[in-house]
């Protein structure tokens, strides 16, 4: 009973303040500036308790943008492994979802899900801040339903 209550509090806390870490896995910067734009006054993702953190050890959600280049692949795995459980990954942008225009390039592995598991996909080239907010909220709602 007590464990159940603690779990409930944990989920509540997690949904109310998902801390994110942003990692560019080889993107063209377009999705990255849109992620920052989503955090600044016009769109203000912070009103959902989202806070951008500097280290993977503090973060609950890994926000990845861009196709995975071969150079960055081991680093992406390492960052994912450094995050504490439970952890979620959001793939922002068409490149992060599938490889996009860069699929087939010699230095590209493909989308984020070729390397680490992904919880939410947000397509777009680049993703508009509105879509980022929509995707993030959908992820949070799905966590609430799971409990």
């Amino acid at each position: 009973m007590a464990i159940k209550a603690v779990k409930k509090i944990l989920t509540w806390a997690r949904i109310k303040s998902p801390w994110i870490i942003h990692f560019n896995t080889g993107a063209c910067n377009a999705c990255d500036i849109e992620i920052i734009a989503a955090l600044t006054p016009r769109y203000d993702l912070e009103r959902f308790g989202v806070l951008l953190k500097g280290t993977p050890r503090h973060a609950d959600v890994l926000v990845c943008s861009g196709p995975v280049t071969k150079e960055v692949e081991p680093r992406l795995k390492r960052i994912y492994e450094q995050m504490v459980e439970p952890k979620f990954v959001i793939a922002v942008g068409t490149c992060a979802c599938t490889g996009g225009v860069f699929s087939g390039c010699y230095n590209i592995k493909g989308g984020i899900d070729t390397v680490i598991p992904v919880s939410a996909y947000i397509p777009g080239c680049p993703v508009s801040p509105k879509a980022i907010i929509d995707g993030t909220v959908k992820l949070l709602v799905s966590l609430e339903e799971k409990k």
Partner: protein
Amino acid sequence: MSDKNKFKIPIGPQHPALKEPESFSVALKGEKILGVDIRLGYNHRGVEKACEERTYIQDMYLVERVCGICSHSHSTCFVQAVEEIAGLQVPRRALYIRTLVSELERIHSHLLWLGVAGHEIGFDTLLMYTWRDREVVMDILAELTGNRVNYGMNTIGGVRRDINPDQIKKVLKGMDILEERTKYYIEVASKETTVIKRLLGVGILSHEDALRLDAVGPTARASNVNRDVRRDDPYAAYSEVSFNVITDDHNDIYGRTLVRVKELMEAYKIVRQVLKDMPDGPITVKAPRKIPAGEATSRYEAPRGEDMHYVKSNGTEKPERVKIRAPTLANIQAVKHMLKDRFLADMPIVIAAIDPCFSCTDRLISINDLDRTKSEIVTWEGLRDYSIKWYKEKGIDFSKVEI
């Protein structure tokens, strides 16, 4: 110096101060930086090679995604080179629209930089202010081109979308708002004590060094190098508009900030002139699918400095070679110089001050053998010998084949 006092710390590829994956290895003595090793390549996607496997129209969208901040720069630069090879006469209205979008892009990029610089010196209020105002120009770009970033405005032989009087009114209104705000930012940058104390005398690049290290764009202009492709080698409609090339003799990050905020004012001026003088007429000419054989180099003043594209065609619908030299690659050597003998705490802002774009820069792979100090240049003969040797080990002998 004994190695005992030396301390090496890695910064990146994932680091709170860096927005892109790049890696710096900093040798320190106490707080002082002895030297910096920059390792690029995390963002290398192989765009140049991919260009050779796609048609010219597909390439245009691909080079647009070399960098998401100066996307119009890359696509215009590429298109200009292709048009030169094909001998296309681009309509004047199209050139004016290109100039318009390019200046709007400069406005969005410089406002973005001002915010990032504010963030790096711990002045987050400035970040929030500039990014709020930046949304004005983002709305204009979305209205004109249909997308906030990666506009897809160019096509070979012109532009894809025309501009109507309604939109012109909206752009002019946006310019008025932004001009008002930029005056405030000039005030902040030139009078605010915290900004001056943090930026004055940091990241010094003397005039001689800027010339020697071949810095470009605002980084060079802040070291009093009077160089701007828009004036020196006019493209699009720049020969028909009047503007000042902003230079500064502070040689430091303070100077670079002033150059950028003042360039914003020039950009508003150019946008107004372009809208006033916009000629009537078609916006595109028909371009052939197969571009005749030839080669061309095109230059473009991107927000970060001079961008250069080289295109070689072989008469088919795909280019034979595309080479991209983005402005950050020219400036990155200057960063190394600026950081030497400075404090570690200055590093984020010094790197941010050139407005680095590593997705632009990661165009090449350099093979550095750790045991050797010299880098290796492979000639065609050497490459052939290597391939013959490689196939011989596989049991096939190509040494008799004539080329």
